[in-house]
């Protein structure tokens, strides 16, 4: 078990190195110049700036310095915002994205399990039909449209109530998070509901359920102890990729709801060609996702004894 995760961890680190290198060489292939600003500068000032940011060194040296800095956890200084370290930007904005993401995952996970179990329980009856219709809708409507429409409904709600029932944007209290998190988690919730439903239906026809029935266990106990617990397992496996989807899906929600998270900052940095911020954020997100997937696998091993034995 430990050996397996040590191996995973090493592979994860290699993956992060791959991401960092791809980002580095990618960004250096971008046409244009990070020092080309609005102000006309003399050759001397340019040279000084290039020296300050280490841009005067050969590409190979720059790459080694970059890798060394990343190993130390230092992503450098923003090009467009003087004296602002990328680490500070991440430290400041990532907790907001993370809070939103965690809340969205909680919504998606709880909702997915609940709705999925319900549809399987009422298979081919009206709750199943209604929920599956909504699920198809949730998968088919792009997240920015869902975000826009929910914001629109919030405006309508506030106008109808005459006061601010829920804020339509911004960040601060729990109330600010509620609707964005729900919107963010919606497509994942729809996906998890589908998964949960098919997993539940698969479990129903297994031998251990039949055995439990034959032993005369009450239906509620069969449902909660045997069916639900086993059906949840596949849901946990996809939580890793789901976290990835939710962190990047956060861009849209953060833009629409004016939330000062890292996703919005990343999009801004792209538009301003702020190289260090783009590189830092990409490597940070990449590392975060790699570790999340490993963490979810670890969790899976804890939840499902069969996996533990196999590894």
């Amino acid at each position, binding site marked *: 078990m430990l050996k397996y995760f040590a191996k995973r961890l090493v592979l994860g680190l290699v993956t992060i190195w791959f*991401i960092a290198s791809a980002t580095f060489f990618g960004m250096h292939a971008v046409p*244009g110049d990070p020092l080309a600003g609005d102000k006309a500068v003399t050759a001397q000032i340019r040279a000084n700036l290039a020296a300050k940011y280490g841009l005067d060194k050969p590409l190979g040296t720059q790459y080694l310095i970059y890798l060394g800095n990343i190993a130390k956890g230092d992503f450098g200084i923003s090009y467009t915002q003087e004296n602002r370290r990328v680490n500070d930007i991440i430290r400041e904005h990532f907790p907001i994205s993370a809070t939103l993401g965690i809340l969205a995952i909680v919504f998606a996970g709880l909702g997915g399990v609940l709705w999925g179990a319900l549809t399987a329980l009422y298979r081919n009856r009206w709750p199943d039909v209604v929920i599956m219709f909504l699920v198809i809708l949730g998968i088919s409507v*792009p997240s*920015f*449209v869902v975000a826009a429409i929910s*914001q629109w409904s919030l405006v309508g709600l506030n106008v109808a109530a005459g006061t601010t029932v829920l804020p339509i944007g911004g960040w601060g209290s729990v109330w600010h998070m509620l609707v964005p998190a729900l919107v963010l988690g919606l497509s994942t919730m729809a996906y998890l509901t589908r998964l949960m439903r098919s997993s539940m239906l698969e479990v129903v026809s297994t031998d251990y359920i039949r055995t439990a029935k034959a032993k005369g266990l009450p239906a509620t106990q069969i449902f909660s102890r045997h069916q639900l617990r086993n059906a949840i397992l596949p849901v946990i496996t996809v939580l890793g990729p789901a976290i*990835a989807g939710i962190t990047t899906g956060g861009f849209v929600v953060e833009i629409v709801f004016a939330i000062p998270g890292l996703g919005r900052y990343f999009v801004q940095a792209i538009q301003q*060609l702020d190289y260090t911020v783009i590189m830092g954020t990409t490597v940070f997100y990449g590392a975060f996702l790699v570790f999340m997937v490993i963490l979810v696998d670890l969790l899976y091993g804890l939840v499902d004894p069969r996996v533990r034995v196999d590894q």
Partner: protein
Amino acid sequence: MSTTDLTPADFQQLQSGAAAAQTPRPSLSYWADAWRRLRANPRAMISMSLIVFLLAFVSIGPGLWRVDPAAQDLDQIGIGPGADRQVTLAEPFQQWQPSISDIALADNPLGLTLAMPANTQAVRLIWSEQVPQQQPQQTRYRLYRNLFAPKDTGSFGLPLAVVDRSWFEDRLDLQPGTYHYTLVALDADGAETASAVTQAVDVIRVISIAEARQRGLLDAKETAELGQSLELAWHPLGTDYLGRDMLARLMYGGQVSLFIGIFAPLAFVLLGVIYGSVSGFLGGVTDQAMMRFADFVVALPFLLFMILFKVIFGIGPGESGIWPMLVAMIILLWPAPARLVRGQILQIREEGYVSASRLLGGTTSYVVGRHMLPNTLGVILVTMTFQVPSAIFTEAFLSFIGMGVAPPTPSWGAMCNEGIKSMLTRPHELLFPAMLISITVLAFNLLGDGLRDALDARMRGSE
């Protein structure tokens, strides 16, 4: 064992071909059987006809609805579908020299009055001069405009101007409809006082005769008189914020969205199939190395790298940015089908019929081409169908955050991005492209479900 009485007649030799006639139904090939199952699935068939309709909409549509998607109709900016397109002929715009004594002021605290009938050329307001006793200097006013009736002092709307005279001519982006103008008197410090008055003004759309001729609403020879009403060009789905025809833009935008949505999966699935089948067929160390590389590419955060690639490739002037997006998608998305196909190939390689074919002298290319790939084709087809919605979503997402196709090239995602800005006042600009994206994605998802049920016997009934 049943005991049937056999007669010597039963043992007579049959004529050749006689037994075949007794087969209850013709034997079905895998594909014919799959097609039969697919046809029996109403959801899949409805989705298929929807997809055919959408393809026709974007390919044949522009031939039928010959409107330039980039042409701006400046008389009808941001109008909804079925909007009134009457226009009244009026005098050309002329400078206004108000003479306050000519006009009888309305009976409200500030005497706010509409000086002339309001039209889209100008709204002319006039009010009474108030000179407070304690402040000999001239009073200043602030004029607001709102699309909705103001409820309290905080909702007067758009501040148009601060003026120190008692008249104002509003020419700012006037559209036919009702505007609510609010006039607030300011005190000596420039702070708003309690004396405010709101006036609702109905604005009608007008056009001068010269303009009408220029836009082809009137023939050069045709005579027209003032006050006559004409009909402007027809926009069945309205226009966007620049006055461009929505229907035409949806058709041309659909070309971009569907092109990326269909060709990107086609390309990267093909690449993945080649990579995966080579890897699976070669096996051993090569296979290990090839799959490790695929694992790394899978680990790249997709949307982040999509954006990075878009930045790296850049968009030159006059380019639409469709190709960079396509290339980026191919670079990032091939590993998933590659893994799938490799798994399939590894499985099929051990099957009896492959060994049989080898034994009978089938060459490698024959075995791969005749047995292995056709047997993975079902899985590949299903994967491809499910990749279409995600490719369309990706295009829409990138265009939405402004990293997709470059304006003025329309795409459904880019149109959503433009529409979301004026969502509250002109919802149709967001709703139409959003609906088309949703319908397309829904249709491909349902078709994918149907294909999976039809092609993959093992997966049947699990959904």
